[in-house]
């Protein structure tokens, strides 16, 4: 099974971010758009991680 390091990194990062951010997102006095900020952050990291896979050939 060939899983790139970047995929594993993304997997780990997403999981850790999810654990850390659950409380922050659900604070009652927090802004309503906090989940979207977390989502955007993960997408940015994903864009960075997938950048190096462009050299892969199928």
């Amino acid at each position, binding site marked *: *099974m*060939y*899983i*790139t*390091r970047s*995929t594993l990194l*993304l*997997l780990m990062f*997403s999981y850790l971010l999810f654990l850390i951010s659950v409380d922050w*997102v*659900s*604070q*009652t006095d*927090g*802004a*309503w*758009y906090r*989940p*979207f900020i977390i*989502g*955007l952050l*993960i*997408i*940015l990291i*994903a*864009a960075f991680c*997938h950048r190096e*896979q*462009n*050299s*892969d*050939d*199928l």
Partner: protein
Amino acid sequence: MTFDLSSLFILGLCYMAMLFFIALATDRGWIPQRITRHPVVYVLALGVFASVWSYYAATANAFRDGFGYLAPFIGISLAFLFSPLMLRPILEITKSYQLSSLADLLAFRYRSPAAGTITTLVLLIGVIPLLSLQIQAVANSVALLAPDTSQTTLAIVFCSLITLFAIFFGTGRGAGRERHEGLVMAIAFDSVVKLLALLALGVFAIYQGFGGFSGVDDWLQTQPELLANIKQPDAPGSFHVTALLFFTAAVASPHMFYMIFNENNDPKALTLASWALPLYFLLLSAPVLPILWAGLKVGSTAPLEFYPVSLGVDYGSEVMTLVGFLGGLSAASGLIIVITLALSNMCLNHLILPIYQPTARNDIYRWLLWKRRALITALIWIGFIFYFLPDDKLSIRAIGNVSYIASLQFLPSIIALLYWPRGNKKGFLTGLCVGVLIWFIFLMFPVLTGVNLLAVSDINTREIVAVSLATNVILFVAISLWTRTSAEERASADICALDTIRRRNRTGLVAKSPEEFIEKLTKPLGERTASREVLQALRDLKIDKQEKRPYALRLLRGRLEANLSGLLGPSIAHDLIDRFLPYTIESEAGTTDVYVIENRIEAYRSNLSGMAEDLDNLRRYHRQVLLELPLGVCSLGEQNQIVMWNNAMAKLTGISSQEVLGAQLNDIVEPWGTLIEGFTSGEAAHVHKRMLQVKNKRRYISLHKAIIEKSATHKIKQDGVVILLEDLTETELLEEELTHSERLASIGRLAAGVAHEIGNPITGIACLAQNIRDETSNDELRGMARQIIEQTDRTSRIVQSLVNFAHSGSNKADHNSEIVTVEECVNEAIALISLDKKRKEINYKVHCKAGLQILGDSQRLLQVMVNLINNANDASPSGSSITISSKLVSSSVQLSVTDEGSGIPEAIRDRIFDPFFTTKEPGEGTGLGLSLVYSIVENLNGHIDIISASSRKENPGTRVILTFPCYDGASLPAGEFSKAL
């Protein structure tokens, strides 16, 4: 605010016309390909997944579940964010084997037509409600805006337009395997419209409803219950189950499978989609909450699902109402088109073709095209009937969930397909059937009949999903472990599994050439289709029509199966190819195919890291060593197939590795095929200096071989032969030349001895003849004595030449070393030659640069010049010219003698310096002249070159060029200088 039907109708019609135009413009090439084939278009087309559930149902979900409404968006986004784990490997398989649907993929992996049929049926049952849902959403939104109009009429018009669009742009070219760029562009446009519509509605809601972002926060502070509801954690497990459902839907929903894998034109586009599509869904989900809150704030009476449409009405904005309506229309239309296209392919391949196939007399492409069109029409109208018939219209959320839960049952088989080669057909089918049964009884049945079985028992939807999935997985694993897997299925599993490189290496096709392929396939497909498919496969593989190598034919067979799979589905294609293009020999399972292993490693090279990367580097190094080895290396696999052919081998034989790799030994051109085959089958491990005739030239080759035995361990199953070819031609020729030189040297020594022995009697004969000449008065006797003297003179000259030749080069110290003026030497030579009264009328042209000097023996240089000019004389016709010139080139004196004679033929050019070689008549030349010249020139540290223009028809001539180091007093060693003076 209400609208009349005609305005909505015109708006809808204009929108559909726009879709038609975009698709048409793309297909006709009016839009540049750099736009239509841009990866962003592919990403936007994938936005088709966001159908009415994201456009309409999301607001209701947000109200009920708070942030739980994000679960579907997160589920599908995760599938793309981690595309290297699932989507990318499946893309590779579907591209390689032309699999157009999940049913194709599962039928291919589990080698079972039944797997394809059951998958199609389950997806059909699961997806039809989704189709009707889209129709219902459009009809309901119209009813909301124009309450007096007939929803049914508009639904019929909508369905008709969608049917026409799907038929025109989804089945345009007939074969069903090509990308539909017009369709993709139109769907991408759909996605842009719905995103812009939702974003516009979100901004409208924030600024019109609340006066800005701060207004939203202020209003939320006054709604503590709503705020708490949004941020309250969802019921345990519900969020995760929904996310899992939508994660699976990336592969298990027909429309997403179709868009991701069928319409992909570049694997890199999927890499872009890995993050760009989640971004799209993020942008799509963000405006949902402001829209919901704005609707709640204004006290909208519309159902929660239709807030995107009703918002404009509630705030008195016609534009935003129409924007909301258009967004909903785009969300529904895109999904219906793609879903029907995907389902039509599946139904055709797995429901119709297994029962009824066109005969060879039919035009198969046309037959398939019309069946596909009929299926598209049927599917859309079945969706319509499903919407139209039930009196009690179900909520959007219930229908959506029921549909997607069915697709969740495919998750175990999809994961097993990539990561568990042991999973087999029986396990898959049993798990799927039981899981689907649970789903049908407890979820689908209540939707269809209204009888809610859940009320009887105390379980909810989430638990049913968990139970059905768990049962599916347990049965799949247990039965797969307990039952046997067929060899054919194991081969497919190996192809799909990511962690194995085992392949079945089979050889010996019955058909031996592409022509025979066509001939064999004519029976089931008809001549026209068979020819077209075989030629297409040859074009795909860039293989020549004359190709006969087994490796290439195996590739052709595989490609044909893949192409036919795209046309008829994998089950029928596999069956057809197996029946009409069978293998004659089937090697044991588990043997490795070196090409496949190498290709896979090359393809995944950028993914290798750490130890794997080191191993790959080591492999490449060893391979390079073998390729660059200065000995010819040829490695043979099973059935004497050539596995390796290194560079030295290609140079030696003149056959490139591309020509022979994969071929059998007997396919190689002669004489190499016979040589290697004979050596391989023989018992000798070494053969020394085998002579071959290659292009009329002799070659001497030594051969060595080593047998690669099958290892006792399981890991090495490769056997074969390694053959080394050593080219000894040059060595052999050098040896021959040496032998020849030795022989000549012996003759020379012999001749010198003979000359010495002959010299004395000749002198005696000459003296006696002189006595007779001087002492007799008999004229006749005197004449005879003169003739004897002439002949003895001639004999003496020959003998002297022999002696000179024998002594030349042997005693350098005896030669004088003096300063010789070249011009004087040339003039003296011409003067000497001019004394010969029998000479021809030759014009001597001397162009010698004055003052040129060399260091050497003047008498020997004179002899060289006399010999060369004499040779030129002999070769020149009467009246021609001989040019003698000398010049200074760099630090050398170049002396040339040029005649206008017949030149030296190519055939003898290599031999003219050989002793005793002459072209003159017997008795006219000794064959020692040029040998002597060569020897003297070498002794004088000079160099001799002969340029002959014998190939020129007119005035060919020969030029002999002598090059000597120029005399320069300053550079002369002290000893030499004094000697020279």
